């Protein structure tokens, strides 16, 4: 019988195979290179975006990518333009006269410029939906709130609408709480439930991007936690942009963070980088509470 100097246990057998680059690096006595992370696809590309409220310039030449199936947080002090920026994505500013856009927001992969005058804002809002600071359900039943966007889009098949309503309510983690009272007035729901209903309403039209404008600022910590959990689940399906004043919320829920000040994009990077080691002093001063 051949002698075995030491036994090889299951743990040793299960050891991962060292990649060639790591073996080569060790052979020459330097640390092995970290495997490069695959690039994250871009869902929208913002280029030199400017926005004017009449004579006032709210956004000044913003350029940044919006990564697909990731959460991007927009942070900055009040009046810095983060909500203005968010609202450009679904042409909310079109509702008021005197507002002007310049630059582009290209939705990928088709390359549609969301700001082009030839692009119908209603179509844009079907692809990019929005959830606001305060829950704003329509004065209708729970069911009709979710079905509303589908009807606007021309869906007439009752069965299809039923399925879609259930699917949207499930995605918004609300189905189990409302499935037995779908015809109740939406206002009878609690604040957190109303906000999830608004999310379900936004999800019903299968948007590619969802915009959240301080979605939890009117909610208690428990309802806030459920919305944050929901955002984390939703990013498997769609791309999310969120405006928040809560630094810890931005750190918790987002993958990328953009810091804005006076209508300009000061810094855009991964959330980890922004909250651990921002490049710009202005960013660090803001997130560490040294602002102003």
């Amino acid at each position, binding site marked *: 019988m051949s002698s075995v100097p030491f036994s090889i246990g299951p743990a040793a057998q299960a050891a991962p195979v060292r990649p060639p680059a790591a073996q080569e690096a060790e052979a020459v006595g330097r640390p092995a290179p970290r495997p490069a992370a695959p690039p994250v696809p871009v869902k929208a590309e913002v280029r030199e975006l400017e926005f004017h409220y009449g004579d006032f310039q709210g956004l000044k030449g913003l350029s940044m990518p919006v990564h697909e199936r990731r959460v991007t947080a927009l942070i900055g002090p009040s009046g810095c333009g983060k909500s203005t920026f968010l609202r450009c994505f679904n042409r909310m500013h079109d509702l008021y006269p005197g507002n002007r856009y310049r630059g582009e927001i290209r939705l990928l992969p088709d390359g549609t410029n969301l700001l082009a005058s030839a692009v119908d804002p209603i179509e844009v809002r079907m692809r990019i939906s929005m959830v606001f600071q305060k829950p704003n359900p329509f004065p209708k039943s729970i069911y009709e709130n979710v079905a509303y966007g589908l009807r606007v889009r021309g869906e007439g098949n009752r069965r299809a609408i039923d399925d879609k309503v259930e699917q949207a309510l499930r995605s918004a983690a609300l189905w189990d709480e409302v499935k037995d009272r779908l015809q109740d007035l939406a206002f009878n729901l609690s604040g957190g439930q109303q906000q999830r209903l608004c999310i379900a309403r936004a999800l019903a039209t299968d948007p590619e991007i969802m915009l959240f404008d301080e979605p939890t600022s009117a909610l208690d910590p428990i309802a806030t936690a459920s919305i944050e959990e929901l955002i984390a689940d939703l990013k498997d399906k769609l791309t999310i942009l969120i405006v928040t004043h809560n630094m810890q919320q931005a750190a918790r829920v987002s993958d990328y963070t953009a810091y804005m000040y006076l209508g300009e994009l000061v810094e855009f990077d991964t959330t980890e980088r922004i909250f651990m080691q921002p490049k710009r002093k202005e960013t660090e001063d803001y997130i560490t*509470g040294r602002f102003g």
Partner: protein
Amino acid sequence: MSEILEGHTVSRYDGELNTAHLQVLEMGGLVLDQCRQALEALKTGDLEAARHVLARERQVDSLELKLDETVWWVVGRRGPVARDLRAVMAFSKAVTDFERIGDEAARIAHATLAVYDDEIRRPSRKLLRDVQTMGRLALGMLADAVALYDTFELAGAEALVQRHHELDAEFQSSLRRLSTFILEDARNVGHAVNAVLLVKSLERIGDHARNLAEYVVHLVRGDDGRQDAVGDETGGAGTARAA
């Protein structure tokens, strides 16, 4: 108060970080003094001084608890980020290193009592020479590390991280020399073993001083320089450090 910790809109936050900072400095100063006194007791055979070091170990433990409490408070209440988070983490990690340095000082004090316990057979000066040489190097590193927590000076911290090579080389030489004492005369075994334990304690103090310097590098520079030494997650070769 250091500039690196101040300037918050909420001035109480400045105050809380300042409290943690002062506690780190107090603990650093105490363990530095513990090491100095323990080595002096060993050099002079002053058993009373060695017992004093052992008695003061409770103070070190008490400061560790106080600083832990402050760190928990700041983390829980303020949710620090960026350099504030790095500062709080540096303080939290430094307290562990300081506590372990305190343990090493107590070990030196215990060893001093053991070495001088034998009235008949005192250790020769030659046998303890290596301990004193290692002691000077380790104390120098520790004093500089503690000073870094006052100044947060990056260049000094980066230089200190590299100084462990000198201590490591001296440690290896000490072990070789001490083994020759045993080979020369088997009656030296008892004292030689004590001397080996002492130089090992001093080598660990040097490693802790290096850790302390690395926390300052991370705090000031932002990136974690230790990754260069540790290698990547696939298992690059790293260098030993005090835990």
